[in-house]
């Protein structure tokens, strides 16, 4: 077409020139008078017409040059848009993938086919429904037949078919049955990391967990290399999940939670909360299953708080490891009495107070420091602020409105203040790692990333605390956490859950927080079991030392190598069982130990 346009001016111009020249030559010689005037008029008209045509052709030529040289025209533009940024067509995905720290896919978006029908084209609705139901078990035959007879041009039959189902349906060759491209969020690991990942709804919007917190980032992402990389290690997650669920099942407990955190940067390597849910079927999840105990739940932690009480006393110089306290007599304050489960009847050193988990001793230590300093110290450890974890489900810690003497006393052994497990693990990590508090994160930190760190404790205190935590496992309440190959240090905790009428001695929250390897800690492992029934159904064996410590031990034994910790010499011999105190506060607010 362009060629034809080009040809025309070339053809016209010579013809016009010839006639024009002829006119001029002849006109001068022969024509005069009115005839000449008429010719002049004709000539002027011809010139005007010529100029107009010439301008038109110049415009066409100009446009041609413009198209050929400067613009790529409409078709190449389209191809470029298709080609994507790398010159290759990338499948358009609504949402970026989520991967673990090793690049294992945790959440991805798959293109699926959704099945719909045009009832006008269906010849035999009943037969078609019968055939389809054979491939798609979720379809109800009668209902489908009803839909296929509807007086419409479009009815959905089923969303998000598997590729195999799609092929089978296609093979049926029923006219009037069509596929529509659709996208679906898929979590290949199912329940394994459900609370960290959360889930996305049918419209591909994040509704919980990281899916929700990073929703805009996940939706903005285009092309490859924009995966969201979490700090989770799916292998460690699996180990923790297995061990925790086994313990919860055996203990017939209400639930449990566990987490593994890197003490050197706050990365969460594993985080399990039971009961849980399957993010692939999030619409069927119960409220209890959706609840993330590690971040949203706040609990009175019990004796694990003695880590902070003891560290505080050492840090502020209120006591040293060898100082002796009289713990024989219960402490009475106002209407409350604080005592130990098994009173040793003799004075204990600060070390023994920690190792044997004496409530009376912890109260003495806290009183030696004072309430104001205690509150300030716990604030420094992040106990009263929302942790900066990148999940939408974060619980706000609870503390007494007015910090009285009784609060100083109960907080010393972990009652009267409720914090989330992730807060506890973060603070224990800081106590163990030399005294630096790192904010917890579910994102894998880049090597060059500056980590916000806060010094909360001296290295000397941290070293003493590591020694104490080690002794808890070698000869104290946490003996059952000991495993060959790794030296674990830690602290048990057994808190009574507050009920409608004071604390309930039958309903315990048993926990163990461990760090390993204790000499140079790399990871903190925290396990909480909610209302364990006790080892062998014996309710006296439902304490943190009995039910939670072994879980931490097993997790370390199985996950230690995965987490890249070199094993050490076998641990020293295990000494016989020690006492595990239980706190009890009766309806009147009295605190005393059970028989």
């Amino acid at each position, binding site marked *: 077409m362009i*060629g034809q346009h080009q040809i025309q001016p070339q053809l016209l111009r010579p013809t016009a020139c010839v006639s024009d020249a002829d006119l001029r030559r002849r006109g001068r010689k022969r024509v005069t008078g009115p005839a000449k005037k008429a010719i002049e008029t004709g000539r002027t008209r011809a010139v005007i017409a010529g100029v107009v045509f010439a301008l038109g052709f110049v415009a066409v030529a100009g446009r041609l040059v413009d198209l050929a040289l400067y613009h790529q025209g409409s078709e190449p533009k389209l191809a470029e848009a*298709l080609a994507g940024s790398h010159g290759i067509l990338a499948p358009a995905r609504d949402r970026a993938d989520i991967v673990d720290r090793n690049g294992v896919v945790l959440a*991805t978006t798959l*293109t699926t086919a959704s099945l719909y029908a045009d009832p006008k084209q269906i010849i035999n609705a009943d037969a078609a429904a019968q055939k389809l139901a054979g491939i798609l078990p979720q379809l109800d035959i009668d209902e489908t037949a009803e839909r296929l007879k509807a007086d419409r041009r479009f009815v959905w039959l089923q969303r998000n078919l598997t590729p195999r189902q799609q092929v089978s349906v296609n093979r049926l060759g029923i006219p009037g049955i069509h596929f529509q491209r659709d996208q679906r969020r898929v979590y290949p690991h*199912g329940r394994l990391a459900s609370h960290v990942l959360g889930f996305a709804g049918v419209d591909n919007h994040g509704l919980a967990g990281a899916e929700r917190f990073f929703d805009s980032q996940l939706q903005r992402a285009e092309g490859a290399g924009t995966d969201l990389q979490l700090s989770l290690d799916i292998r460690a997650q699996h180990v923790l999940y297995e061990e925790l669920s086994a313990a919860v099942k055996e203990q017939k407990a209400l639930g449990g939670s566990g987490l593994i955190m890197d003490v050197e940067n706050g990365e969460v390597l594993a985080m399990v909360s039971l009961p849980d849910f399957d993010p692939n079927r999030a619409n069927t999840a119960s409220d209890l299953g959706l609840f993330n105990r590690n971040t949203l739940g706040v609990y009175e932690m019990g004796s694990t708080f003695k880590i902070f009480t003891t560290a505080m006393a050492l840090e502020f110089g209120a006591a040293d490891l060898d100082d002796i306290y009289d713990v024989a007599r219960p402490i009475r304050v106002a209407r409350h009495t604080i005592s130990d489960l098994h009173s040793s009847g003799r004075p204990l050193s600060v070390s023994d107070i920690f190792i044997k988990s004496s409530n009376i001793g912890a109260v003495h230590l806290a009183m030696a420091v004072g309430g104001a300093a205690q509150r300030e110290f716990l604030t420094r450890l992040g106990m009263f602020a929302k942790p900066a974890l990148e999940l939408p489900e974060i619980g706000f810690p609870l503390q007494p409105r007015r910090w009285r003497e009784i609060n100083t006393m109960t907080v010393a052994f972990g009652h009267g203040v409720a914090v989330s497990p992730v807060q506890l693990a973060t603070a224990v990590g800081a106590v163990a790692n030399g005294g630096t508090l790192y904010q917890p994160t579910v994102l894998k930190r880049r090597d060059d990333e500056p980590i916000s760190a806060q010094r909360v404790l001296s290295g000397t205190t941290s070293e003493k605390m590591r020694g104490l935590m080690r002794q808890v496992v070698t000869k104290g309440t946490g003996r059952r956490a000991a*495993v*060959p190959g790794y030296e674990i240090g830690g602290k048990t905790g057994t808190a009574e859950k507050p009920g409608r009428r004071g604390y309930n001695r039958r309903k315990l929250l048993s926990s163990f927080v461990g760090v390993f390897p204790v000499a140079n800690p790399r990871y903190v492992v925290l396990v909480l079991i909610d209302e364990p029934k006790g080892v062998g159904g014996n309710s006296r064996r439902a304490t943190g030392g009995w039910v939670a410590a072994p879980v931490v031990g097993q997790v370390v034994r199985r996950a230690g190598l995965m987490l890249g910790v*070199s094993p050490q010499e076998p641990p020293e011999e295990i000494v016989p069982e020690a006492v595990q105190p239980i706190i009890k506060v009766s309806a009147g607010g009295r605190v005393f130990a059970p028989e």
Partner: protein
Amino acid sequence: MRQAVFWLLAVFVAGAGLYQLKYRVQTEEAKLTALNRTLFAEQEALHVLAAEWTYLNRPERLAELNRRYTKLKPVTAPQMAGLDEVPLPEAAHARLTGETQ
């Protein structure tokens, strides 16, 4: 006159050439679109396969397969040793650790 014939010919040749070129480009573009479509399908298939691979490699499933088909047990910490604990000839040791003595 000669000049006019020359230009006329030139115009025909150029026109025919352009026509040819245009159709060639159209053919190539059709090929490109087809290739892109194939690539698209392949990438999507890859994506599905990657998801399936992850699904089949769930730690839970691997543990079950291991239990059923092999007699392997998880490596335990006491089984691990540093390179310096392995009795090797000194030369081999130096080569492996990159140390020169």
